[in-house]
């Protein structure tokens, strides 16, 4: 891979002139300038996969919409973060996520603390544009502290990445493919039997929905702790 020197680049997001370093992404620069772009699979501190497609933006001169989280900035580029077309895309993608599994907020443990739910409020999406697929999966409550409910999973793979990249255990991964894809522990074994899991709970802290949650605490307390990752990275750097 060619390694280039980091340079300062100036470009526009929604007609606002912004600057960033050439190794930064559109999303990173936008956040620094308090320009909001919705995300789900993105989490600061973890690798970017660009899979949920919520952060699609328009880059002038490009034929296709591009995910802000993986698009590197370029000098003079013009980014548009909202338009009727982009909005239509986000609504459809969000509807698809809702239709895929069973997301019934009223009975969900993270009701009020869910990133998926937040997105519907932000986008003003009142109902799914597509019919529900009503897939049913078994809940794994074998672990003494945590529960895995695949019915609320949106396959953002934050848990897989945090376990591999931050905890270094790689206890989680994906099984099967396409619409049948699921998160598994070890070789699709009950969580309690996992030999790789360190019970550190990071996967639970970063899960954007109620797919992974702590046992025995009240719904009100089920706050996610996504910033724990950045703090960890920072303190590790200090140690070096």
């Amino acid at each position, binding site marked *: 891979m060619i390694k280039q020197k980091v340079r300062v680049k100036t470009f526009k997001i929604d007609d606002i002139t912004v600057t960033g370093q050439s190794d930064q992404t559109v999303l990173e620069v936008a956040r620094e300038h308090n320009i909001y772009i919705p995300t789900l699979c993105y989490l600061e501190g973890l690798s970017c996969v660009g899979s949920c497609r919520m952060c699609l933006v328009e880059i002038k001169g490009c034929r296709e919409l591009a995910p802000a989280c993986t698009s590197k900035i370029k000098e003079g580029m013009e980014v548009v973060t909202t338009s009727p077309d982009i909005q239509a895309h986000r609504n459809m993608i969000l509807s698809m996520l809702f239709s895929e599994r069973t997301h019934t907020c009223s009975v969900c443990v993270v009701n009020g603390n869910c990133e998926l739910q937040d997105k519907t409020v932000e986008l003003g999406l009142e109902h799914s544009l597509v019919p529900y697929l009503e897939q049913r999966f078994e809940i794994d409550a074998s672990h003494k502290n945590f529960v895995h409910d695949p019915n609320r999973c949106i396959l953002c793979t934050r848990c897989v990445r945090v376990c*591999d990249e931050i905890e270094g255990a790689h206890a989680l*991964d994906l099984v099967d*493919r396409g619409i049948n894809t699921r998160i598994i522990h070890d*070789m*699709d074994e009950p969580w309690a039997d996992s030999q790789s899991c360190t019970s550190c709970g990071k996967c639970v802290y970063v899960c954007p929905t109620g797919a992974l949650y702590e046992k025995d605490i009240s719904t009100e307390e089920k706050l996610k702790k996504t910033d724990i990752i950045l703090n960890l990275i920072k303190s590790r750097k200090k140690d070096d």
Partner: protein
Amino acid sequence: MTDAADNRYKLIEQTMKKLGYDKSALIETLHVAQESFGYLQKDVLKFIAKRLKAPYSKVYGVATFYHHFTLKPQGKHSVIVCLGTACYIKGSKKILESIEERFGVKVGQTTPDGILSLLSARCVGSCSIAPVAIYDNKVKGRLSIEESLEKIEEILR
């Protein structure tokens, strides 16, 4: 360990050794494992994971991603009906349905007695002689529904 004496494990070991126990050897190793064991059982997958120093979940994830790999034991005989485009428009779906009905087995499954596995393929590249089915590794083309059933009776005999 009796496993170590098992010739089939040796074959797997050889493959990994040839590829330097690198993580990229995983898929090649799975191919060899499936060929020698007939399917990928968890013990074998765990053995491979340990030797390649790969996480269990990753090995399992890879093994289930590729449709060529099967985690269930296969029947003594197998029929693979091609469902590629050319075969499809020449009626391979009807062939599949007739086999399912006659032998009481759904696609992807094995008869309860473990004799016959019915599988489908996404194109075996023999489109010019569509519709095609593979009976115990022998390709047969230009099948009619009756022929497709007779061929199974033949291999079961």
